């Protein structure tokens, strides 16, 4: 009898502990969104999202907006995610189809985990050194390549985990129908495509928010992106530079830029959720 009461109390206690943790997480997220919104909404205007800066944007009297950085960031993040996917997806599928627990696979996982832990400023410095060696200038292309290195481990390891969770019987069933390994790969991709999309999104979200890796490699400019070999602006750096001025009006624009960045990420997450549930219709659980 006593034991029963104790277990009930225990259960109640931990339920509340978990609720408290949940609340903390929700409150912190809410607070961040609230601050960005509160401080940025005043400076947010149609001009801000639709025009590149005009003269004196970083002084209090300047006009224009951060459209150049929005486009630049989308190019950088999309390019880097695409490039990283082109490497990560075949690599992950290869190790799973040919030797999921072999030495090669495990060494690769270790290497990716180490890459994941390296701060992005180090990739920035690496990219910068490589650029100098190749005689390149800061450019969209250099930014994409460097950012691709930052997101590659995220994409590859997340997708690797997704593929590892594919049911063991998928393997046996597909091969018992006389499939080749390439055909099995196709079936495996069908099973894991929603997870792949999640991995791609995670990488994109990380990529679009990263400032340190593009600081030296993509550079910064007040112009719209002009080509792969020209410098581009990006939202995180726009926030950084605007926040660094002594003028409160410009600092407010930094929050507006941050708000735009947040809205982009939010929109993409929601779109992805919708497409994941559509793509996941056939997935075997």
């Amino acid at each position, binding site marked *: 009898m006593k034991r029963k009461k104790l277990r009930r109390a225990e259960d109640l206690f931990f339920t509340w502990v978990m609720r408290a943790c949940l609340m903390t997480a929700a409150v912190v997220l809410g607070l961040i969104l609230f601050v960005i919104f509160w401080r940025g909404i005043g400076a947010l205007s149609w001009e801000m999202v639709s025009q590149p800066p005009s003269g004196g944007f970083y002084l209090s009297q300047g006009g224009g907006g951060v459209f150049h950085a929005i486009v630049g960031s989308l190019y950088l993040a999309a390019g880097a995610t695409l490039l990283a996917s082109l490497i990560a997806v075949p690599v992950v599928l290869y190790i799973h189809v040919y030797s999921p627990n072999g030495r090669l696979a495990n060494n690769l996982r270790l290497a990716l985990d180490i890459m994941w832990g390296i701060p992005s400023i180090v990739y920035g410095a690496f990219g910068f050194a490589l650029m100098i060696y190749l005689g390149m200038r800061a450019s969209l292309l250099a930014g994409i390549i460097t950012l691709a290195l930052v997101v590659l481990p995220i994409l590859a390891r997340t997708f690797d985990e997704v593929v590892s969770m594919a049911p063991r*019987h*998928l393997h046996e069933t597909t*091969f018992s*129908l*006389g499939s080749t390994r390439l055909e099995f790969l196709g*079936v495996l991709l*069908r099973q894991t495509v929603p997870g792949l999309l999640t991995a791609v999104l995670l990488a994109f979200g990380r990529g679009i928010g990263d400032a340190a890796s593009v600081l030296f490699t993509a550079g910064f400019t007040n112009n719209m992106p002009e080509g792969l070999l020209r410098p581009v602006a990006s939202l995180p750096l726009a926030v950084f530079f605007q926040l660094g001025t002594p003028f409160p009006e410009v600092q407010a624009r930094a929050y507006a830029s941050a708000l735009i960045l947040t809205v982009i990420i939010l929109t993409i997450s929601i779109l992805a959720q919708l497409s994941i549930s559509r793509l996941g219709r*056939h997935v*075997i659980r």
Partner: protein
Amino acid sequence: MQPLSIRKLNVWYGKQQALKDITVDIPYHQITAIIGPSGCGKSTLLKSFNRLLDLNEQVRINGQILFDGENIYAPGVDVTDIRTRIGLLAQKPFPLPMSIYDNVAYGPRIHGLANGNLSQIVTAQLQAVGLWDEVKERLKDPATGLSGGQQQRLCLARTLAVQPEVLLCDESTASLDPISARGIEELLRGFKDKYTLVLVTHDIDQARRLADYVIFMWLGELVEHGPARRFFEQPQQELTQAYLAREIG
């Protein structure tokens, strides 16, 4: 004619030997049941027939399995061809991650069997397993939306659509309710004139109902095999007698 002849087959998982010196012939267009207690190597034997064991990297195999007179373990044999001609129905229904239609169409598509009448093939196979009327309105729906028994019949249709010569079933009714299980049993019985069937079961009554030929295994060894009638009525080995009397196992 013997479509499958097993000759001195030994199989190891790492260091552990799972099959010891198995030699037996599987009769043509009959139902052969492999029976024996859990862990005696029934599934291992069955999966050696279509080289599905090869998927496990630890497995080591020696001996021969002759399929139409050719050793399927000879170097240079096309494994996908073996698996195409010898189909497998697993213990648990496992649809592929695609629609009901695409599940059945999968085999004909990869093997190029359709010749422009894929939907006729799909329809015919779904009819052959008695699933057509239940699914004809929802061919594009996910296969996971079907009940367990329906899924198993779908898997059977998918296997048959590849046009195998031999059909292997590994306790294919064990995870189903009794009515669905009987349904599958009836289907298998009716397939005898088209396919050579090999079923693994640990249900002695099921073996009695279905089998024409019986193989009895014990701890990785083949204890006794023979035509079902003789096997059940006059078992030669003491081990078989004890097993059939349910004294051991």
